[in-house]
């Protein structure tokens, strides 16, 4: 008889453990339960881990708040709604797998997500194939509502063209036409840089840049390249933790005294993560918590403050607006049929309590992009309120920033 050692683990145990871990990938996601017996399910896929975890968590907070509001008002079609939240782990394969699982196994009626543009595009292919209404809450790359647009895909956050078009002229006028790009080497980064370059070239400017792998820990070599080019503006397109690390080094190297810095986005989550001396530059905000005179913004901000302890961010609003949009359109049309809802959403205007911004932004019928206001402004250390770290200088209407539908390359093919 073989002697059993106290810590021995045989091959079978390893295989069983491996199978258990693999099976765990297909178990039920975290479900936010609501009242009622036959809830309507919304699947939310976002990178809850990885470099975009902070902004993804913000979207989840906004989505949960919307869920609570909707269920308090009677739900959708008289039924409560549930939110099934999945972590895409900032990985395209995982995002696609989780989307398929939500649709095929969990039978969700709608899909929301992802923060990562590359994942959002891949998810859109799945939702199109499965004919599920899909709201891209926070993935910005142009093709989502451009060359890769689809009848079932709508987007809350801005396209990269909208963000770059809104701020490019300000950067050119204030600082000059010689730019250096620090760009993340994936769909979003390429798309933003292309948008900026198009405008810069049209105004006779010149540029160079570095494509930087996601999650790069040190930016010094890229900043040496930038300094060698001697630009007037460093366009920092990095996001999340990457943007925080690169901006910190930019300031430590004293480059803020030699060139301006700006770009498409410097989200409130990221501004909070850098020290005061790195809270600089000209950027766009896609939503801002301090909009005096705009209805319902104060209430939403207060609600988010109660939940998170901090002011509402654009990501909170993305999650909130995504879930609210789905509930509004389903209640209006009294159906869950995706093609019918998609037809109704094309041209649908968000009511003030969901829009939370000047005017009534609509999902443009030609490309399904929400014509949301782009808030161009300047980052700075806190002034009064600890989250008052951005001053809006120029709110640009969505339609103006987006340009004509024809320029997006979107040709929507509706199902027969």
């Amino acid at each position, binding site marked *: 008889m073989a002697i059993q050692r106290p810590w021995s683990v045989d091959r079978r145990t390893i295989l069983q453990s491996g199978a258990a871990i693999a099976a765990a990938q297909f178990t039920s996601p975290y479900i936010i339960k609501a009242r009622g017996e036959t809830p309507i399910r919304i699947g939310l896929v976002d990178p809850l881990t990885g*470099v975009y975890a902070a902004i993804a968590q913000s979207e989840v907070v906004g989505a949960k708040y919307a869920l609570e509001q909707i269920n308090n008002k009677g739900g959708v079609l008289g039924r409560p709604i549930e939110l099934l939240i999945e972590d895409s782990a900032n990985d395209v394969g995982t995002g696609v797998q989780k989307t398929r699982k939500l649709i095929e196994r969990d039978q969700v009626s709608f899909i929301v997500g992802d923060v990562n543009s590359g994942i959002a595009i891949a998810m859109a292919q799945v939702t199109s194939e499965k004919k599920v209404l899909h709201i891209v809450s926070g993935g910005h790359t142009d093709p989502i509502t451009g060359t890769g647009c689809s009848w079932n895909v709508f987007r809350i956050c801005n396209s990269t063209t909208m963000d770059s078009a809104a701020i490019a002229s300000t950067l050119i006028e204030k600082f000059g036409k010689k730019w250096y790009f620090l760009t993340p080497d994936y769909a979003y980064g390429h798309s933003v840089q292309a948008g900026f370059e198009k405008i810069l070239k049209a105004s006779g400017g010149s540029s160079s840049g*570095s494509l930087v792998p996601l999650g790069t820990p040190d930016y010094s*070599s*890229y900043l040496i390249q930038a300094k060698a080019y001697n630009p007037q503006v460093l366009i920092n397109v990095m996001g999340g933790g990457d943007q925080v690390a690169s901006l910190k080094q930019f300031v430590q190297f004293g480059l803020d005294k030699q060139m301006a810095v700006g770009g498409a986005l410097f989200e409130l989550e990221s501004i909070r993560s850098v020290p005061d001396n790195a809270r600089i530059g000209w950027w766009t905000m896609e939503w801002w918590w301090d909009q005096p005179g705009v209805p319902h913004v104060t209430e939403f901000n207060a609600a988010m403050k109660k939940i998170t302890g901090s002011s509402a961010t654009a990501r909170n609003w993305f999650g909130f607006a995504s879930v609210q949009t789905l509930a509004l359109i389903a209640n209006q049309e009294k159906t869950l049929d995706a093609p019918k809802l998609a037809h109704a959403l094309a041209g649908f205007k968000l009511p003030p309590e969901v829009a939370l911004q000047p005017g009534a932004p609509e999902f443009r019928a030609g490309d399904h992009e929400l014509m949301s206001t782009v808030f161009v402004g300047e980052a700075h250390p806190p002034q009064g309120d600890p989250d008052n770290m951005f001053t809006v200088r120029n709110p640009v209407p969505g339609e103006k920033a987006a340009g004509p539908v024809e320029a997006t390359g979107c040709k929507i093919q509706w199902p027969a």
Partner: protein
Amino acid sequence: MTLLLLFNITNGLIVGAFYVLMALGLSLILNLSNVINFAHGGFLVIGGYIAYALTPYVGFWGALLLAPPLTAIIGLAVERVLIRPLYGRDPLYSLLLTFGLAFMIEDGTRFIFGPQGKPVAIPPFLAQPLSNDLFFITGYRLFMVAVVFIAVALLFILLRYSRLGVRIRAGTLDLETVAALGINVRMLRSLNFAVGIFLAGLSGVLAAGQLGLEPTMGTGLLMPSFIAIIVGGIGSLAGTLMGGLLIGVASGVTAVFFPAASEAVIYVLMAVILLTRPRGLFGEEGMMS
């Protein structure tokens, strides 16, 4: 172009010095205990967050002194409870355990401190570049290199001249004989693990000051450190030192010509070394067999 190249080589040495600090801790643990510590980046994060939590009370310098030993104490507890039972087994066991532990640490810090990064301020006099031309050599980066130099020197003195160091080196070569000579191998492994984690904690405090602090920061810094060990040669601390500097320089030089490949180049370098000299630059043959 020559100046740019020189700048990037110098910068690569600075970046590489940081990888050295991480890699030496990893290497110590791997050499003596055969544990491929995937949680090393996690311990770096713990070190950074401990420093962040302590800074309001003891300032940056106090946090720099206190955070690494506190991280080492946590490392000791982890070694005692989780890692020790796996000694003597296939390294795959400890690899899987530390791989899971890395996720737990990342999620744990996210749970405690939130997913949002934390701003870590450094003393203002360190936050200035040396000059307009040598802008990439800041006071803080110089300080970081000095800390790495001192830590490496102390480690080599410890290993060379102290009884503990001699035993660690002997254990790296033949642990069974060391045990047969009556040396408490369990204690030796624990202390060695603690020294390795101390270096991870120190790396965490230094990295937080330069790059900021967030739960995922260890992931991006871990792989270059592993590659430094493989390139330098498993079993050789001098090799780890050279490996760290080499990959820093390789990455910096590549950034001049093809920035997008500056991360990939270290993997290419590793592949080339493994193909031409599988033991690494300074490694001894059969160390991992």
